[in-house]
């Protein structure tokens, strides 16, 4: 059974059909890419999958449980983390504290516990371990606001990981990153692969082709193609494109 299964999702906003019968499955331990051109409905899809919007029709199941229509918070508590296209970090706080703030211990007890947790070595150690996973061990004491853009992206993934999710959603992680930053991010994600189930929503095809086990192509609010990167690459029109030349 797939870890995450969305079936026949429909979503309309006024005069627009935003999602039309989208079905997606994410297998445990796999990295799935969702790609599509701008305006294809990727973000709405992401928001329906992670509970921000309720679908008009269709269902979402996670680990065998129906989570359709649950709030983002409730979905997060089931073990699904998401990072956002627009980063939300606490700029005044250090990288380490940003991670600590989303550790299960703090989320259980509330923000007031942060000071106490600062002295709680176990929590600090695991937050530090998360920073190491995302390559920011040497930036632990630097305030989030002073990190480079690429480092902030990595920290955001760290914040998402601190919640110890079973499933991690990343929304346009390469947005705003240059070639070097994108390469570094790809390296980071490749290291996380297999440690947990990852879903990446991204318009940069090349980024996904090199990382994903499977890719779903979304356009017009529908899944228009699906397959492994190799299967999708075989398409003659992909061969004809820049992507074919670079792949």
């Amino acid at each position, binding site marked *: 059974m797939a870890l995450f299964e969305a079936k026949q999702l429909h979503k*309309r906003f006024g*005069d*627009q*059909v*935003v999602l*039309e*019968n989208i079905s997606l499955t994410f297998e445990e331990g796999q990295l799935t890419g969702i790609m*599509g*051109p*701008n*305006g*294809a*409905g990727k973000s709405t899809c992401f928001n329906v999958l992670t509970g921000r919007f309720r679908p008009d029709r269709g269902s979402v199941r996670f680990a065998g449980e129906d989570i359709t229509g649950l709030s983002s918070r409730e979905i997060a508590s089931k073990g699904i983390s998401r990072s956002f296209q627009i980063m939300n970090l606490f700029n005044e706080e250090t990288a380490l504290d940003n991670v600590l703030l989303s550790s299960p211990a703090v989320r259980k007890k509330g923000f007031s516990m942060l000071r106490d947790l600062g002295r709680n070595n176990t929590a600090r150690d695991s937050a530090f371990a998360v920073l190491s996973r995302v390559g920011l061990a040497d930036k632990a004491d630097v305030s989030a606001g002073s990190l480079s853009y690429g480092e902030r992206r990595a920290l955001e993934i760290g914040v998402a990981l601190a919640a110890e999710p079973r499933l991690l959603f990343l929304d346009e992680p390469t947005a705003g990153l240059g070639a070097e930053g994108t390469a570094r991010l790809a390296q980071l994600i490749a290291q996380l692969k297999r440690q947990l189930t990852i879903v990446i929503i991204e318009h940069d*095809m090349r980024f996904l082709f090199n990382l994903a086990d499977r890719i779903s*192509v979304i*356009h*017009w*609010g*529908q899944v*228009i*193609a699906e397959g492994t990167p190799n299967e*999708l690459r075989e*398409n*003659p*029109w*992909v061969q*004809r*494109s*820049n*992507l*074919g030349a670079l792949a």
Partner: protein
Amino acid sequence: MSTSLLRVERLTKLYQRGMIQKQTTFSLEADFEIAGPSIVGVMGANGAGKTTMFELITGGNLPSSGRVLVAGQDIHRVRYGERDRLALHYHQSYQLRSFTRNRPNFMLEHAAKDRAKVHLFDEPQFNTQDGYIGFMLDFFRKLRADGKLVFLCLHPNEPVHIDIMNEICERFIFVNKDENRVSRLMYADSLSELSRDARVRTYLGKLAPPL
């Protein structure tokens, strides 16, 4: 007898100007039937009425006379919010479902189908550099294999657009606007057949296939 996927019956759409001395500014006439699944290429100059025809088929626009049957159901008698269960209008990268309303929803019937049978793609953006074209064409084929009727409206201005139409379309409609501003449809089974007509050749210009 099975029901046709689409019947456009003596459909006309008139736009007029002036209160007393009415002057027709635009007029579209269409009458055709497509029984089974197919991929139909639609061409015509800007302003010839391609989008208007799509709007009439999806029930977004009201005909002046005639009717449109999608899978046997008169689209203009179906509740506004349910018309997209019969026909979908894809406008470039998104899907529209706005409707000119002429009677309240409760007077209308429910859609007899759950998923759209007719899919109309209005000038989708084909960018040869990003590779999405291949997935878009596969999607048209998948819809057809699932028993749907696909319209692909393109305004060819590069050779690749002709390649796309030749690769994917099984029949063609050309919307021709004459000197009296009356738009009528021409039908053909291939692009080469269609482009034997001088008006189509003029429209295609350098892209017209050799005679």
